[in-house]
């Protein structure tokens, strides 16, 4: 059976894997800030957001594991899949860069994830909507946190503004994938555009110049960055399979 068949046969598995992988990979990315953020308060804030996301990933991957029924639990899905099997969007695997680049990524992603999760929470599939309803409160805070930082950095010093613009430019290529007609959520685009434009206007920033969108994460074609992230995240379970503490 090809992958397309699996997807067609079980769209809920497909959704759960994507949502779980998005949350897992971004949670892992944010954990890289632990001990390195500009201030203790931000260190905790970024770690908190990362932990929220890893919590969401656990729920979605547990659901995926249950539907898949192959005896791979959420940990096995996280630690024993290889890079081609991950279904996260390219945006979440992008490197942290500086604080402004991290905020740019969070701003674009959390605003999208909030809209998506509101839709999922209201959707008829009970297992997905239960996770979505819980996650949406966390995500609303992430979107608020990142949007406020976009305004502070964009409307701050010349340095902070330049760094934020560079961060947004880096991330902007990966936005179209979120709304891809085949693999994304195209119906959310107008609301998302309005949110992004509102915050950028408040930060007295222009929208980044349109760029050719890069897609492929949803079918396992990832950037070089994901392999490096996984080698760190999966090291322990690969070196010592089944290790617990």
């Amino acid at each position: 059976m090809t992958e397309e068949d699996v997807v067609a046969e079980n769209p809920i598995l497909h959704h759960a894997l994507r949502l779980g992988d998005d949350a897992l990979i971004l949670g892992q990315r944010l954990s890289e800030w632990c001990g390195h953020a500009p201030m203790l308060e931000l260190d905790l804030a970024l770690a908190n957001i990362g932990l929220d996301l890893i919590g969401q990933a656990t729920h979605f991957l547990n659901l995926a594991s249950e539907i898949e029924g192959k005896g791979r639990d959420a940990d096995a899905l996280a630690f024993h899949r290889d890079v081609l099997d991950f279904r996260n969007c390219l945006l979440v695997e992008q490197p942290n860069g500086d604080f402004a680049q991290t905020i740019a990524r969070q701003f674009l992603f959390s605003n999208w994830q909030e809209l998506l999760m509101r839709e999922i929470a209201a959707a008829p599939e009970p297992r997905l909507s239960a996770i979505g309803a819980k996650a949406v409160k966390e995500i609303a805070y992430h979107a608020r946190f990142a949007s406020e930082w976009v305004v502070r950095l964009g409307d701050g010093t010349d340095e902070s503004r330049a760094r934020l613009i560079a961060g947004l430019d880096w991330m902007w290529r990966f936005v179209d994938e979120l709304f891809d007609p085949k693999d994304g959520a195209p119906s959310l685009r107008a609301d998302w555009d309005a949110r992004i434009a509102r915050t950028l206007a408040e930060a007295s920033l222009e929208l980044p110049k349109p760029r050719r969108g890069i897609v492929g994460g949803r079918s396992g074609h990832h950037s070089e960055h994901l392999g490096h992230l996984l080698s760190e995240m999966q090291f322990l379970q690969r070196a010592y399979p089944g290790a617990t503490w």
Partner: protein
Amino acid sequence: MSKASSSEAVGPTNSSWPLWEVFVRAKNGLAHKHVGSVHAADERMAIEAARDVYTRRMEGVSLWVVPSSAIVASDPKETTELFEPAADKVYRHPTFYTIPEGVKNI
């Protein structure tokens, strides 16, 4: 959130951001209690930092943040005259009363 209000909040700190004192109300009906401090550039950031640092484990239902510079403290040199006179006035303590059963939070 305005620039004026954040510049008022300059406190005794070696960071570039002002210090804010954080008060948490553990549950409705109790008073806000001082729990510590955070650095933040403005009121909103101070509330969010306080939320992330002090209420992650369901410690509270409400937060106050106050610029540390707005706190007026007693002078340690005046400790003797301010506090010692109370030391030998045991009759000011309500220890001679029995508290009815079922009364909490006294």
